[in-house]
């Protein structure tokens, strides 16, 4: 798709970001195997060893290879992002599309609820969920997704307000299509684009939220790991072994930054493209009276 291609490779910065994300993805897939060390294996010869040829990123307090662990962390963090973002789309798109299509009071009430939810400190709720229902990774990722649908619901609702004035919706209605059919066949496919564009900005938010909760020791548990857990461990050993903090922090920071940059580009480009499009629709419907 030319749209995504320009956004992801249009400038040097965008290309660098894309390459970094690609590398991290590959690292998450195979990285732990490259290093030749098992992420849980302990090298008694090298406790808290500085980076060298054998341990590229050094080792942690109990002699585990940090490169292998950072890659394992990448796998967990990116899996969290994938699952949670999918969940946020699955909630946000139908919610926003339904509100926009119904309009009137229902719409106002549904959007008011979204406004109110913006003010709830959800991270604390996820923490409580973890404590109450045990630290089950899948539940953790699902819960993260369940708090990031608000933006997507708003965007989709805005788009739906435009779409529902279109001739093809009217035509479908005239042909006797039910509300559900119009929603699923005519509205949802047409709001999928903006939903996906905005979902790219959900990815870094989720990665951050996951690492945040894991950092506090309330998310992912040993021997499994994530960037947040590694940063927390690194914080404890940073005085004697700064690399234990540096590498996980670098990966988390750069990955989140790259996703944000690419997400911004996608969104700007999309806005520029659709501004003309929405204006046309508006003048069309004005002309029709």
């Amino acid at each position: 798709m030319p749209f995504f291609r320009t956004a992801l490779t249009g400038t040097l910065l965008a290309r660098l970001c894309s390459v970094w994300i690609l590398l991290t993805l590959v690292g998450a897939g195979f990285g732990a195997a490259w290093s030749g060390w098992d992420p849980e294996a302990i090298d008694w010869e090298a406790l808290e060893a500085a980076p060298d040829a054998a341990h590229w990123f050094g080792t942690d307090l109990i002699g585990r290879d940090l490169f292998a662990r950072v890659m394992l962390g990448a796998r967990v963090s990116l899996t969290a992002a994938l699952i949670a973002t999918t969940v946020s789309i699955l909630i946000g798109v139908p919610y926003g599309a339904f509100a926009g299509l119904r309009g009137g009071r229902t719409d106002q009430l549904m959007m008011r609820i979204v406004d109110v939810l913006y003010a709830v400190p959800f991270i604390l709720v996820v923490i409580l969920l973890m404590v109450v229902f045990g630290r089950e990774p899948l539940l953790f990722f699902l819960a993260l997704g369940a708090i990031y649908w608000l933006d997507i619901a708003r965007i989709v609702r805005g788009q739906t307000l435009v779409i529902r004035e279109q001739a093809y919706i009217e035509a479908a209605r005239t042909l006797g299509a039910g509300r559900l059919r119009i929603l699923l066949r005519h509205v949802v496919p047409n709001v999928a684009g903006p939903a996906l564009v905005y979902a790219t900005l959900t990815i870094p938010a989720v990665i951050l939220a996951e690492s945040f909760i894991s950092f506090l020791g309330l998310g992912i548990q040993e021997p499994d790991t994530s960037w947040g857990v590694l940063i927390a461990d690194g914080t404890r050993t940073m005085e004697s072994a700064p690399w234990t903090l540096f590498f996980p922090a670098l990966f988390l920071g750069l990955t989140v930054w790259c996703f944000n940059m690419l997400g911004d580009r996608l969104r700007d480009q999309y806005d520029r493209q659709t501004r003309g499009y929405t204006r046309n629709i508006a003048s069309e419907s004005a002309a029709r009276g």
Partner: protein
Amino acid sequence: MTGYLLNRLLISGATFLVIITAVFFMIRAAPGGPFDGDRRLPPEVEANLLAAYDLDQPPGRQYLNYLGMLARGDLGPSFKQKDFTVNELIASGLPVSLGVGLTALLLAVLGGVGIGVQAGLSPGSFSDAALMGAANLGLALPSIVLAPLAVLVFAVWLGWLPAGGVGSPAHFILPPLALALPFVTAIARLTRGSVAETLLEPHVMTAHAKGLPHRRIVFRHILPIALLPVLSFLGPAAAALLTGSVVIEQVFELPGIGRYFVQAALNRDYTLVMGVVVVYAAFILMFNLLVDLCYARLDPRIRVAD
């Protein structure tokens, strides 16, 4: 406008009740109670203990009792920190949390709006690129990265500032800075976009055409409109700032209520968890009300609506 405010007040009250109810029943749905970890007690002692903490009642009854206590401003005894009431614990932690949080909020607003306005008034210029480039770097430095790195650099390596704890004003330099920086970025980005967009509005062009001085155009015709989205962002930002402060308090070993929350959640200290949630929710909702109030003052569409 009275109708608008009344409406907001009602919604805030309802939200408060929903949050409290949800959290109350959620923690009681957890397997295992607060006293499971203690050594086995004779049944009579255990019964007394449960009665003392109101745990022998059915959950609905406990809930009503709790609401009654809350209405009197009593958050109950802590389950784990014996001899302390939740009120006492929060009273000791809140000044620390509030001090750090409010300073950070102030820094974030001043820094973010300053950078955003400067960049947004001349979009595409060198200063725009330089300022926003620097601000965008903040996206790579979330609190869990920034706070430990700040301790490493300024406390461990340079030795300029203490690494954590409380005691002197120097202890309160790094925490608010580390908490504020990610929000400086967010507010700067929002402000810049909004200012740059307002520049193109017809009424700004008119003001220029009338020959008004630049300063007046900026302060009277651009900023009041351009800063409205920033104002409404402050509500959600306050919620995010609170969660950020949980990490900051952990890293800098500050005895604030964010640390209580994490410890209490791990220990199943029901009343303390509830207490912190009540305080957080109350602050966030009050802050949101304040934001709504300012918004209503600034936006004539709301002022005129009824």
